[in-house]
C-alpha cells in the first residue's frame, strides 16, 4: 500500500507543479512539453525511490499490509493517472460539439434539432476544423478546393484501416 500511496503522492505533486506552471504562463495554449518533462521527472524519481532506493526505508517485512510489494503496479498507476490527467487537460482546451450541445440544452428546458442547428452553424463547427487542418498541413487549399497532403493521406489511410478493422463506417 505504501508504494501505491507514494505513486499517488508523486501524481499529485506533478499535477500541482503543472498547475503552477499554467498559472505562470501568460499566453493561451497547451503546456504539453513542460507537462511531458514534469511527467518524466516524476517517473524517474518514483522509479529511483521504488527500485533503487534503500529497502529498509519502508521496513517492508515488518509493516504487514502496508508492505504489500506492488512496485511495478505503483509505476503503472502513476503512468495511467498521468495519461488520464493529460486527456482531461487536452479536452479542456478543445470544445467538443457534444459539450456545446449539452451547454445549450442546460440553458433551455427543451430544444429542437432546428434550435441546435441554428445555434451551431457549419461556420462554427466545420470551418474552424478545416482551418486547423490547413494550419497543421493535413490539407492544402488550391483555389476553392481542399486537397489532402501526404500527411493527410497517411491519417486518412489509418481511418480507412480502422473502418476495415471495426467493420463499420467512420463516425464524426
Amino acid at each position, binding site marked *: 500500500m505504501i508504494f501505491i500511496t507514494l505513486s499517488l503522492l508523486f501524481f499529485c505533486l506533478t499535477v500541482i507543479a503543472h*498547475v503552477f506552471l499554467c*498559472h505562470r504562463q501568460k499566453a493561451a495554449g497547451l503546456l504539453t512539453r513542460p507537462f511531458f518533462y514534469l511527467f518524466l521527472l516524476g517517473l524517474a524519481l518514483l522509479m529511483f525511490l521504488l527500485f533503487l532506493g534503500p529497502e529498509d526505508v519502508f521496513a517492508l517485512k515488518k509493516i504487514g*499490509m502496508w508492505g*504489500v*510489494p*506492488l*512496485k*511495478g*503496479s505503483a509505476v*503503472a*498507476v502513476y503512468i*495511467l*493517472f498521468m495519461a*488520464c490527467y493529460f*486527456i*482531461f487537460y487536452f*479536452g*479542456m482546451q478543445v470544445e467538443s*460539439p*457534444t*459539450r456545446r*450541445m*449539452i451547454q445549450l*440544452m*442546460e440553458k433551455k*428546458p*427543451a*430544444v*429542437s*434539432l432546428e434550435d*441546435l*442547428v441554428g445555434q*451551431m*452553424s*457549419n461556420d*462554427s*463547427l*466545420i470551418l474552424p*476544423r*478545416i482551418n486547423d*487542418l490547413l494550419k497543421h498541413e*493535413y*490539407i492544402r487549399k488550391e483555389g*476553392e478546393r*481542399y*486537397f*489532402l497532403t501526404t500527411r*493527410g*493521406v497517411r*491519417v*486518412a*489511410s489509418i*481511418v480507412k484501416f*480502422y473502418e476495415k*478493422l*471495426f467493420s*463499420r463506417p*467512420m*463516425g*464524426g
Partner: protein
Amino acid sequence: MHSLDLFVIKSALTSFLLFAVVFFFALRWISQPAVLNWIVRIFVLVAIIHFFHAVIALRGMSPFASQTNLFAASFCLLISFVIYGLTSFLYIICIFGPFETSVRSRILRELCSCYPEGFSYQQILTKYNNRVIIQRRLDKLLCASKVSFDGQFYRLKKKMTFFSLTEFFVKQMKRWLQ
C-alpha cells in the same frame, strides 16, 4: 518483481485485452448510437470475470492463503481493477474515440474518398455538415439516457452518465488551470 506485483499487472492487462477483443467483435453488431451503452456493459462483464478469476487465483497464492491477509488481498484486487479500468478508459478515449467522434478525421476521410481530387467547402458540407454532427450526437445522448425526446423537443435529464462525469472533471480542471 514480486509475484503479487506481477499477478496484479498480468491480471489487469489480461482483463483489458479481453475487454478490447470482446469489444472489437461486438462492434460488428452494435449500432452507432448504442456504442456507449455497450462499452459500459462489456466493461462491467469483463470486470466481473476479472473479479472471480482474481479471487480464485489470490486464494491459492502465498501469503494470502490465510484469513489474516484479507485486507492485503482486497487491496491487490482493487489495484488490479484500477489498472484495468484506466487502461480500458484510455483505449476507448485514445483509440476508439477519435474514430467514432472526431470531426477533423471525418473531414480527412471525406477528402480521401475523392483523392487525388479535392472538394470545395460546399461539397464537403453536402456530405458532412452541422446537422449530421448534431443528429449523431443527439442519437447517442438519447441512447445513453442523457436526454429525452418527445417527438419534437429534446430535454436534458439529470442522470449521472459518462458525459456528466467527464464534464465535471473538465470544469474542475478549468477552474484550477485558468
